[in-house]
């Protein structure tokens, strides 16, 4: 048996042509039963008296949406072949592709884990952390409901350390690459002896067997029955919440019966766990800044005409004059791109996103226009925030809570302006404001 192959494939479901081992090595392990093969796409025929229909499923990402399959005349298998468009960025899976799964003894880590964290928990953090640890030890699913800026990543450390010491394989998954990039160096510091892989869209190759895997939920398409313990951070974030295949990916990546734990500031109602902890205070103990509502009647028409509404212009000028960094959230990419003036702007497809956020943090630019892409994960000291068109459907209560959560995160500047500019108050705006006021009271 090839140990490197075992380490590579343990817990994975991997496209044969992307496996970095020679053909003969893979063939030998298929023959010896170490590797189990699955076809890329499975087609189920359903027929009754009147019609016959084919239902397809991608065996990697479990996509079943007919519109995301494409059929073509394949020059490799010389048949009419079908491939999955949903997970195509990870290498195309088609009817004639082979997916490899490791079918024998799993690889194991050999490290003696070290816990190098010297931080201090506040009393509520301590309590939540202990509750989570106890759930993890009993393998019961747990939800940590913590307000933005409560210091929720640290809460995971004791539970992760205990699991690693027990010889378990642990995964921390989050919907967004930015979050994984932020977590990776922190985890490397806290668990200096542990083999950690950080997996996201353009991640470099990482070798050997990782006892701790940080991954975007997308990357979990490529795992199957891999983890004893799974934590999902920001479980309500786009696209995880909206994409059923990502939720299935998390379940698929966990070993059978392994409990899945969630951490979020804005849990959706569909999130059901056995246990739960609630953390309503920020780590610095100050109240959350409460959003204020301010009418900006007809802002869409004015922006269309190339004019910044008076109140908004005044708000911008105040921030620039007082050298306060600011973010302005806009409802669509079109509004963002057509926004008058030359304020820098970012959206999901923007290549310089990270660079511009950094420039704002270093005060090289006064402020930034953004879509909801920056609703979570970014921390900018003393930032003030305005939402333009807060009544629009894209700004759900959870998006509004996350955006409000950008303000007042540092102990030095625990306050700051968060304003919802609107053309009529929506229920979601009320819900967000109520939730934040509720946390402050409790």
């Amino acid at each position, binding site marked *: 048996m090839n140990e490197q192959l075992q380490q590579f494939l343990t817990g994975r479901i991997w496209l044969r042509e992307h496996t970095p081992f020679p053909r003969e090595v893979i063939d030998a392990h298929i023959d010896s039963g170490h590797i189990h093969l699955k076809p890329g796409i499975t087609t189920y025929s359903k027929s009754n008296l009147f019609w016959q229909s084919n239902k397809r499923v991608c065996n990697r990402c479990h996509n079943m949406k007919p*519109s995301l399959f*494409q059929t*073509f005349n394949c*020059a490799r298998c010389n048949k009419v072949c079908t*491939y999955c*468009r949903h997970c*195509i*960025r990870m290498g*195309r899976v088609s009817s004639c592709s082979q997916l490899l799964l490791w079918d024998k003894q799993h690889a194991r880590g050999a490290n003696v884990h070290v816990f190098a964290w010297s931080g201090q928990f506040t009393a509520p953090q301590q309590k939540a952390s202990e509750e989570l640890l106890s759930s993890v030890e009993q393998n019961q699913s747990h939800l940590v409901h913590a307000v933005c800026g409560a210091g929720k990543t640290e809460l995971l450390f004791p539970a992760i350390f205990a699991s690693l010491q027990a010889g378990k394989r642990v995964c921390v998954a989050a919907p967004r690459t930015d979050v994984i990039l932020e977590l990776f160096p922190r985890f490397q510091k806290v668990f200096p002896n542990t083999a950690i892989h950080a997996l996201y869209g353009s991640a470099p190759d990482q070798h050997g067997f990782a006892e701790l895997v940080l991954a975007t939920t997308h990357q979990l398409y490529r795992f199957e029955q891999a983890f004893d313990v799974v934590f999902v951070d920001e479980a309500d974030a786009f696209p995880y919440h909206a994409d059923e295949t990502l939720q299935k990916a998390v379940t698929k990546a966990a070993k059978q019966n392994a409990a899945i734990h969630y951490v979020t500031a804005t849990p959706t109602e569909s999130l059901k766990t056995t246990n739960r902890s609630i953390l309503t205070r920020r780590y610095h103990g100050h109240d959350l800044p409460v959003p204020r509502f301010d009418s900006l009647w007809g802002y869409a028409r004015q922006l269309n005409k190339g004019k910044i509404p008076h109140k908004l212009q005044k708000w911008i000028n105040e921030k620039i004059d007082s050298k306060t960094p600011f973010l302005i959230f806009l409802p669509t990419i079109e509004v963002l791109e057509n926004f008058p003036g030359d304020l820098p702007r970012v959206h999901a497809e923007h290549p310089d996103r990270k660079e511009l956020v950094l420039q704002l943090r270093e005060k090289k630019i006064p402020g930034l226009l953004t879509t909801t892409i920056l609703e979570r994960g970014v921390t900018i000291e003393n930032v003030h925030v305005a939402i333009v068109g807060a009544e629009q459907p894209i700004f759900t209560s959870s998006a509004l809570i996350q955006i409000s959560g950008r303000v007042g995160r540092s102990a030095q500047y625990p306050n700051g302006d968060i304003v919802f500019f609107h053309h009529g108050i929506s229920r979601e705006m009320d819900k967000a404001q109520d939730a934040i006021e509720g946390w402050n009271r409790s």
Partner: protein
Amino acid sequence: MTCLICGNPYQSMATWTKIFLYELDSSTCIRCLEKFEISQSTIDFTDFLGTPYEGAVDSVYCLYTYNEAMREYLHQYKFLQDVALAKVFARKLQQAFHTKEGIVVPIPMHPEKLVLRTFAQVDELLNAAQISYQQLLIKTKSETQGKKSKKERLKTTNLFETIQTIEATNYILFDDIYTTGATIHHAAKILKDAGAKRVDAITLIKG
């Protein structure tokens, strides 16, 4: 409709135009289509003056420039093998071929490369645009063009061979990208030498 490129829902064109113009269904939203840039440049053949390829090609028409959006498109279409994206330019190609008369001949792939890619990217663009064509050429050399200098490309003889008789009529070569022009000139010369009266070329992209 769901856009093939960005995956977002969008409004398809009013249906009456489709009925009257027999237009193909659109597949891509306006926002994504607008990112492609129409090519304005005219192709000159001065590089080929005084070579055996002088006069082999009568005209070349390229639809788009090679910009960032096109780079991403080609990456997904060719490298990620997303055959579905052949439909993105179907309408534009159909319009382009309407203006020219002749037998459409796609530039072929080497058979070994075809098996690796699993589909012929040039043929699939034509299929999606419902343009009929004849495969009159086969590729005889498999080494990739990209690694060679312009001079080397021109020197390489017999990149293609004809596999059917060529008539004294008009032909339209079609390729995905026109870079140095060597490929198109090679193919055109083979056709002309075999008796073609006129050889025009259309490519999706001016590289």
